[in-house]
Every structure is written in structure tokens, then in C-alpha cells.
């Protein structure tokens, strides 16, 4: 087959549908990535307009530009949009678009999940935009502290829009994190062992793990606060055994890692772009990987440094102050690795390099002020002042926006296949750089003079007028710079001429393909033996196009790629991806309907929507594409591999495992909340404990054991090639016992609105019930497939996946029952 014929055949197989239908049915990572990037950029512009409104208000004292009530909505939405609708989705978009190209594969692990995540993000974002336009936007600040955000002080739906809209968007982030983790570990070019991975993939992997561990505490906190607002469950009400500090813990357990979730991908961009601009390789690759991992995990040990002013004992303050200063070490290692890379290379002052220099300048200042606020006495002085706002902008704008703009201009020729020829980008850089530093250096200054953050006006005699005016003028200069970037990109898209394939002379695989990239990425999946395969073999792109590597011969209309061993990169299995589908958008709409039902408090909508979710999920699971025959498959280069679906550890199993990591963190956060109220919460113990029921405990624990055994028996049966029906029915009996025990405990949970104890028990048992129901439904589906037989019969991977969920459900049910039933005996 000629290269052209191969290109035509693969394009037919992998392309999206034409027109608007292609937008809603595409599952291709390049399309989804571009859509993510576009929508995230639009939200950046919305957030930017809100920022300009803030600066207009603060430009003069006693400003009457907007009322304080509207101003509250503006600054809350500015933070919310920038954090949840711009920064994280922009990383997701960049990762979704770039990773398969960097890793040498044809798509991400779960193409439909990418699309589902994207549509959840869009629908959740639209909820918040609607709230903004309708004057119903959240107004309690982007971290929504109760009691300010509780129904007593924030009546109306403003806070509900935040809690429900943001949680919906977080579904998208969790989906992307699972997708990215599995893709990086299992979907790489053969031969690409962990030590040969592009550095951006390491950063994306670390970030994805951080999302899996960082987002669940906020999801839990949002659920608890919404339950309090909607039904009066008093989790955060001190008088009834709750504590507003519990929200702060849950929020910052997410909120501090969030800073690194935003910074690390940007650091990945720097580590990728800077060596190319310096015409060398990254200095200290291992140390940079180690520093990224250390920074990520240290980032989870800092959350209390946002709570230094809450009256925590000195020893606790010292723990977190010490941890906060420590993060400067891995950050410093990365900075010095980048400086060393510049030192050993031959840097050229291109536009991406300008933005990298801007990053160095601003981020180092942000890091140093970070060390200042890590010191408790200084933090007490600066807490809640404009100094903190300035610090976080230096870290986030300097540490994220500058690197991302460097990345935008670096990968623009890859994205468009065109050559940039206007010099608007350079002018835009200087406006952004000077405007940013003018705006936020001034903000440090006015903060040190005592200006609080989030104030709608200030008196004339405070001595802040000129500084605020300087800050506002500078902010508008920066906004003009951003507008020029948009203009530059629009001109590039409309007018620029075709460019060469690898204009920077980079060595990574995303440049070893035609630009703009074809839907299938690689005509054959290359074998990799170097961190910069294209630099090692400049003819690689042609060899890939000629089909000299794996899967060079398209088969029918199958979208095929390979999975590899996570550590060594040895080829393991053949994966057949699903084709274009409107299932993801339909499932996202059904999920959104459930969230909308909660928002408008029309609660009958929720079970109805969840029924659709379950139905569509089952259809999703059943509509996998199959090979024409089972057994070993020829993947080219005289290599036979099994189908991934016929292996013990299919991609679906790994995805479930990573999703359950996030789920376990959520469950752990719930336990943390229970323990926190117990030990630190005011007005504890409750007036009455839940009495222990031996029947409920015994039934629940026995049920948990039976369901695990049942699925184990089913797994063994499938492995032997016999019917798993007996094991599945045993498992279903176990689920029945567990669900009955949990339901009985739930009914006895007591007066849910009278005391936080009863409400906490209710949530814990309800969580266990939901997690018993999920594998029970999955088991029913497997049993139905086993009854139908033939090609519908469950495969090993199907039973293993349900087995994994069952084990987790059993663990949750047993732990929840024990923790709640014996609580009265632990005092």
C-alpha cells in the first residue's frame, strides 16, 4: 500500500463526520482537544473582562461604577471562571490534543470519555455563564466560606450555581484525569519506556494524579454544603455539632494542590519548549521528574497554610509553615535545571522564548512572596489583603499564563500547519508583561499599606488612590496585549501561509507527522529508542508514513492502536476504539439534567435523569467495537498480540482502578470530616448516638463477603471458558444483603437536620448504598449477557472490572457500617 493510499484509508476510518454533526459526535482527541482549548480560551476572555470590571471599580475611591452586590458577583465569578473554567480545562485541552502525538499513539485511552468530559465542562460552564448574565451569579468569593455561603447569609440560588455548576465541571476534570493517567501509562509507542517519555508526559501524569487526589475533597464539600443549603443538614453549623472550619479544610485540601495542578503542566511546557529554543536537551531530566513528583505530593501537605488566621495551635501552624517553605526546594531544582539548560545550549530569542523569560521574572517573584506568606507572623499581617491577591496572580499568571502563551506560539505551527509572519505577538508580549507587572506590583504595595481584598470601594484619604489608578491603567494595558494575541491568532488562522513541518527543529514525535495533523496521527505506530526520536532519526516521519512500523495496514473500518507495558514500553495488546458517537453528549446532557434538577430544586428530575444516565452507560458498555475474530491478532512486524478486551487488565480495568483512587479519596475525606467534627468540632458529642444493630452489622458484613466471593467465582468461570452465571447470581444475593443492611441503617440515622452527627451518618451510609448499587447494576448486565450467550458473553476483562468495583463496594459498606454502628462505643 502506498503512503497516499494508507493516508486515505486511515483518514476515512478516523475522521469525524462533516458539518455540525461532526462537532457533537466526534470522539477524536485532536478535535476534542481543539474544542477544549477554544472554549477554555473563551472563558479566559470572560474572566478577563470581569477582571477589567474589578479594576474599573477600584480605579477611583468611592466608585459608583457597580453596586457592592454586583461587585461581589464579579470578583467571585472572576476567580471561579479563571480557576475552574479556564486554567484546568486549558491543561486538559492541551493534554488531550498533545499527549497521543507526543507519546506516538493514535488516540487517548477512552475517546468517548474525552468527549463526555468536554460536554460536561461545556454544560457546567454554561450554567455559570447563565447565572452571570441573569444576575444570579455566586457572590460569596471563589472559596465560598460558610457561614457566608450558607442559606442564612446567602439566600437565593447564587451559591447553588457555584456548588452545582463547579461540581459538574469537576466531573469533567476527573474524567480527563483518568483518561490522561491511563493513556500515558498504557498508550505509548512501543519501546518508549518510562525513562524515554517526553518530559511533558511526566508533568501531565503527575498533574492527572493530583486531580484524582485533589478534586474529591471539594466535590464532597460541595455536596455537603448543598445538602445544608437545600435540606438543612447542619455540617457547617457550629450550634448543631458542625463546623465552618470543616469546609475550609475540605476546600483547601483541594485548593492548595490546585495551585500545583495549574503550575505543573505549565512547567511541563517550559521543560519541553525551553530546550528546543536553546537548541539542546533538558539538563537533569531525572531530577526534574523527581522534583515534579516531590512538588506534587508536598503540595498536599500545605492546605492549612491558607488557614493560619483561624486560631490553630502553634504546633499545627509550625507543621504547615515548615512544609510551605519546603516546596521552594523542588521548585528551585526545576528553575535551576531550566537555567542550566539555557547555559549549556545556544538560546535564540523567539516569541516562545520571550514568554519563557516573562515566566522566569514573574514566577520567581511569586515564589518569593510565597515563601514570605509561608511564615506565620507575616501571613497574619498580610492575610486577606491585596498583597495576597497580588502574590497569587504572580504565581498563577506568571506560572501558568506566560508558559501557556509560550506553548501556544510553540505548537501553533503544529496545530495549523502555517507559518507565523506578523510581529503582533512580540508587541503583545511587551504589553502583557509590562501591564501585568504594573498592575500587580502596585497591588503588592497597596496590600502592604492595608487595603483588604474584595472591597468594593475605599475612602479618598486612605492613601491608596494613586496606586490603585496605576494598577488599573496597567491592567488595561495588559488587556490590550491579550486582545492583540487573539487578533494575532485570528490573522494566523485566516491569512498565514503554509509552513514547514518542523520549524523549530524539535526532536519529539508530534513533529513527525503532517501539519495540521491527520485524524489518525501516525500512519504506523513508531518504535521509539530515544527521548527525542525525531532528532535521532530525521527520516522517521517518512518511515512512519510508509507504514514501516506497527499497524501500518488498515483493517476494514477498525480504529486500532496498541497498549504497552507501563514500565518497559513492550507492546502488550491491540485496542479497537469506538467510532464517532453522540452517546457522550447525550450522557453529558442526562448528567447535566440531574445537576439542573438539584439546582432548581425540582427533585423528581434527578432520579429520572439518573435512569437515563444508567441506561446510556449500559448502552455505552455494550457498544464496543469488536474484531472480526478473537485470539491473537497480527499487528505488523511479525508480531501477534491479544485483543486488550481479552486480557486480565484491559484499559477499562485501569480506568476503573484510577477512578476508584479518586473515589477512595472522597470516601477518606468523608471519614476525615467525621473524625474532625468528633475531635475538633464544637458542641460534640451529639445528644444521642446511633445504637448498634447486630442484625444490620452481620447482614451487611456477610453480604459484602458474599458479593466478593460471587464475583471471584464468576471470574474463575470465565477464565475456564464456562458460564459465570452461578457466581454472578451469588454476587447479586450478596448485593441484596448489603443493600438491605445499609437501607435499615439509613432509616435509623435519626433527625438529619437536628445535629451534624445524624447528617454525617446519613451521607456515609448513602455513599455506601450508591456504591453497592453501581456494581449490582453492572452484575445484572453481565448476568443478562451471560444468559444471551454467543458474542454477547462477558469477557475476562468485563468480569474483572465488575470484580474491582465489587471489592470497593464491599470495603465501603463494611467500613461505613462499622464506623457508624459502633460510634456510640468509642466515646
Amino acid at each position: 500500500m502506498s503512503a497516499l493510499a494508507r493516508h486515505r484509508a486511515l483518514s476515512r476510518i478516523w475522521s469525524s463526520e462533516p458539518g455540525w454533526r461532526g462537532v457533537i459526535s466526534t470522539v477524536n482527541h485532536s478535535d476534542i482537544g481543539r474544542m477544549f482549548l477554544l472554549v477554555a480560551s473563551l472563558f479566559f476572555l470572560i474572566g478577563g473582562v470581569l477582571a477589567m470590571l474589578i479594576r474599573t471599580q477600584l480605579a477611583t475611591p468611592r466608585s459608583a461604577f457597580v453596586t457592592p452586590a454586583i461587585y461581589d458577583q464579579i470578583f467571585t465569578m472572576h476567580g471561579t471562571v479563571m480557576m475552574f473554567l479556564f486554567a484546568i480545562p486549558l491543561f486538559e485541552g492541551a493534554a488531550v490534543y498533545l499527549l497521543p502525538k507526543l507519546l506516538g499513539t493514535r488516540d487517548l485511552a477512552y475517546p468517548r470519555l474525552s468527549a463526555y468530559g468536554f460536554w460536561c465542562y461545556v454544560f457546567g460552564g454554561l450554567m455559570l455563564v447563565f447565572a452571570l448574565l441573569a444576575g444570579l451569579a455566586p457572590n460569596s468569593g471563589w472559596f465560598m466560606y460558610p457561614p457566608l455561603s450558607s442559606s442564612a447569609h446567602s439566600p437565593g440560588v447564587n451559591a447553588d450555581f457555584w456548588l452545582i455548576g463547579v461540581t459538574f465541571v469537576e466531573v469533567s476534570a476527573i474524567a480527563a484525569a483518568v483518561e490522561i493517567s491511563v493513556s500515558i501509562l498504557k498508550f505509548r509507542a512501543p519501546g518508549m519506556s518510562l525513562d524515554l517519555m517526553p518530559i511533558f508526559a511526566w508533568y501531565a501524569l503527575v498533574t492527572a494524579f493530583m486531580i484524582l487526589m485533589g478534586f474529591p475533597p471539594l466535590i464532597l464539600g460541595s455536596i455537603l454544603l448543598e445538602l445544608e443549603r437545600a435540606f438543612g443538614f447542619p455540617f457547617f453549623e457550629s450550634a448543631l455539632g458542625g463546623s465552618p472550619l470543616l469546609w475550609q479544610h475540605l476546600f483547601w485540601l483541594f485548593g492548595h494542590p490546585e495551585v500545583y495542578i495549574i503550575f505543573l503542566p505549565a512547567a511541563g511546557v517550559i521543560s519541553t519548549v525551553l530546550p528546543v529554543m536553546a537548541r539542546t536537551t533538558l539538563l537533569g531530566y531525572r531530577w526534574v521528574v523527581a522534583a515534579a513528583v516531590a512538588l506534587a505530593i508536598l503540595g498536599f501537605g500545605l492546605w492549612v497554610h491558607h488557614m493560619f488566621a483561624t486560631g490553630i495551635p502553634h504546633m499545627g501552624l509550625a507543621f504547615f509553615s515548615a512544609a510551605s517553605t519546603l516546596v521552594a526546594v523542588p521548585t528551585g531544582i526545576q528553575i535551576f535545571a531550566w537555567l542550566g539548560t539555557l547555559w549549556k545550549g545556544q538560546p535564540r530569542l523567539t516569541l516562545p522564548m520571550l514568554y519563557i523569560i516573562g515566566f522566569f521574572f514573574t514566577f520567581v517573584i511569586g515564589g518569593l512572596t510565597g515563601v514570605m506568606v509561608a511564615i506565620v507572623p507575616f501571613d497574619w499581617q498580610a492575610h486577606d489583603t491585596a498583597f495576597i491577591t497580588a502574590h497569587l496572580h504572580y504565581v498563577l499568571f506568571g506560572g501558568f499564563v506566560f508558559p501557556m502563551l509560550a506553548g501556544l506560539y510553540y505548537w501553533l505551527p503544529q496545530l495549523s500547519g502555517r507559518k507565523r509572519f506578523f510581529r503582533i505577538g512580540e508587541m503583545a508580549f511587551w504589553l502583557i508583561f509590562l501591564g501585568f507587572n504594573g498592575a500587580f506590583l502596585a497591588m503588592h504595595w497597596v496590600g502592604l499599606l492595608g487595603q483588604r481584598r474584595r472591597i468594593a470601594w475605599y475612602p479618598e484619604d486612605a492613601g491608596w488612590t494613586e496606586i490603585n489608578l496605576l494598577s488599573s491603567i496597567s491592567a488595561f494595558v495588559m488587556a490590550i496585549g491579550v486582545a492583540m494575541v487573539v487578533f494575532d491568532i485570528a490573522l494566523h488562522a485566516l491569512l498565514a501561509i503554509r509552513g514547514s513541518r518542523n520549524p523549530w527543529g524539535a526532536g519529539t514525535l508530534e513533529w513527525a507527522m503532517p501539519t495540521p495533523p491527520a485524524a489518525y496521527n501516525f500512519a504506523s505506530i513508531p518504535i521509539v529508542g530515544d527521548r527525542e526520536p525525531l532528532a535521532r532519526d530525521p527520516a522517521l516521519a517518512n518511515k512512519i508514513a510508509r507504514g514501516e512500523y506497527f499497524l501500518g495496514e488498515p483493517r476494514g473500518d477498525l480504529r486500532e492502536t496498541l497498549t504497552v507495558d507501563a514500565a518497559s514500553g513492550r507492546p502488550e495488546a491491540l485496542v479497537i476504539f469506538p467510532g464517532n458517537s453522540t452517546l457522550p453528549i447525550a450522557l453529558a446532557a442526562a448528567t447535566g439534567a440531574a445537576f439542573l434538577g438539584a439546582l432548581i430544586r425540582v427533585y423528581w428530575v434527578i432520579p429520572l435523569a439518573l435512569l437515563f444516565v444508567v441506561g446510556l452507560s449500559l448502552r455505552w458498555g455494550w457498544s464496543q467495537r469488536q474484531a472480526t475474530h478473537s485470539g491473537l491478532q497480527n499487528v505488523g512486524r511479525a508480531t501477534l498480540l491479544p485483543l486488550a478486551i481479552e486480557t486480565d487488565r484491559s484499559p477499562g480495568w485501569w480506568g476503573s482502578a484510577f477512578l476508584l483512587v479518586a473515589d477512595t479519596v472522597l470516601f477518606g475525606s468523608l471519614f476525615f470530616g467525621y473524625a474532625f467534627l468528633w475531635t475538633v468540632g464544637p458542641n460534640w458529642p451529639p445528644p444521642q448516638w446511633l445504637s448498634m444493630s447486630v442484625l444490620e452489622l452481620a447482614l451487611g458484613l456477610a453480604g459484602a463477603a458474599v458479593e466478593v466471593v460471587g464475583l471471584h467465582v464468576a471470574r474463575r468461570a470465565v477464565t475456564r471458558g464456562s458460564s459465570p452465571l452461578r457466581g454472578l447470581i451469588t454476587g447479586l444475593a450478596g448485593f441484596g444483603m448489603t443493600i438491605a443492611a445499609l437501607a435499615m441503617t439509613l432509616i435509623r440515622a435519626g433527625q438529619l437536620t437536628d445535629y451534624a452527627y445524624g447528617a454525617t451518618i446519613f451521607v456515609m451510609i448513602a455513599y455506601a448504598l450508591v456504591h453497592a448499587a453501581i456494581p449490582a447494576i453492572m452484575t445484572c448486565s453481565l448476568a443478562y449477557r451471560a444468559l444471551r450467550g454467543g458474542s454477547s458473553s462477558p469477557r475476562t476483562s468485563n468480569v474483572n472490572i465488575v470484580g474491582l468495583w465489587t471489592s470497593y463496594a464491599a470495603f465501603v459498606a463494611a467500613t461505613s457500617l462499622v464506623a457508624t454502628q459502633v460510634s456510640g462505643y468509642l466515646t
Partner: protein
Amino acid sequence: MKDVVRIAIAMLVWLALFSALYGLEGVGCAAGWHRIQLTGATLFQAAMTLAFFVALLILVAVLVGLRSPLFRSASPFIAHISIILAVAALFAGLWTLFPALAFSSCV
């Protein structure tokens, strides 16, 4: 996937120990351990001091384990990174947990 665990394990153990000592401080203060006198110290001080040394011992054990042939990765790259991070975790333990020895109780 074992190599991924090898890379992350030492810092995760640090995180668990760090959280555990912070939790122990909360439990101790809530239970009034700082008011219970033992020989020359309060129960709170004794518990925190013991926890500090146990935490360091665990971090040393992780470092030794990752260097031992039993748990060491066959990949020199992974082995090197996991040992860097185990040393980092040990230093992180020393630096972030020393307040358990040095600071006053429950004020």
C-alpha cells in the same frame, strides 16, 4: 505499574505521616493529653515525641527498602528517582515534623 508505586511511595508515606502527626496533635489536644503529667513531661509531649521518631524510622525503612534488591526497580532510571525521592521524604520528615519536638502544646 509497580515502578510508578516505587516512585511515589516515599513521598506518599511522608504525606501520610505528616497528616497523622497533625491529626494526633488534634486528638491529643481535644482529649486533654497536655494536662496529663508523666515523668518530666506531659502525655501530649511524650506522644508527639514518640510519633516523631517513629515517623523518621518509617521513612528510613522506606529508603532502605527502596535500596534493597527485594524492592529496587530493575530500571536504573526508576531506581535512581525512587531513591532521590526517598531521601527527599526523609528530609521532608525531619524539616516538617520537627515542630512536634520544639513547640508548645495546644496553645
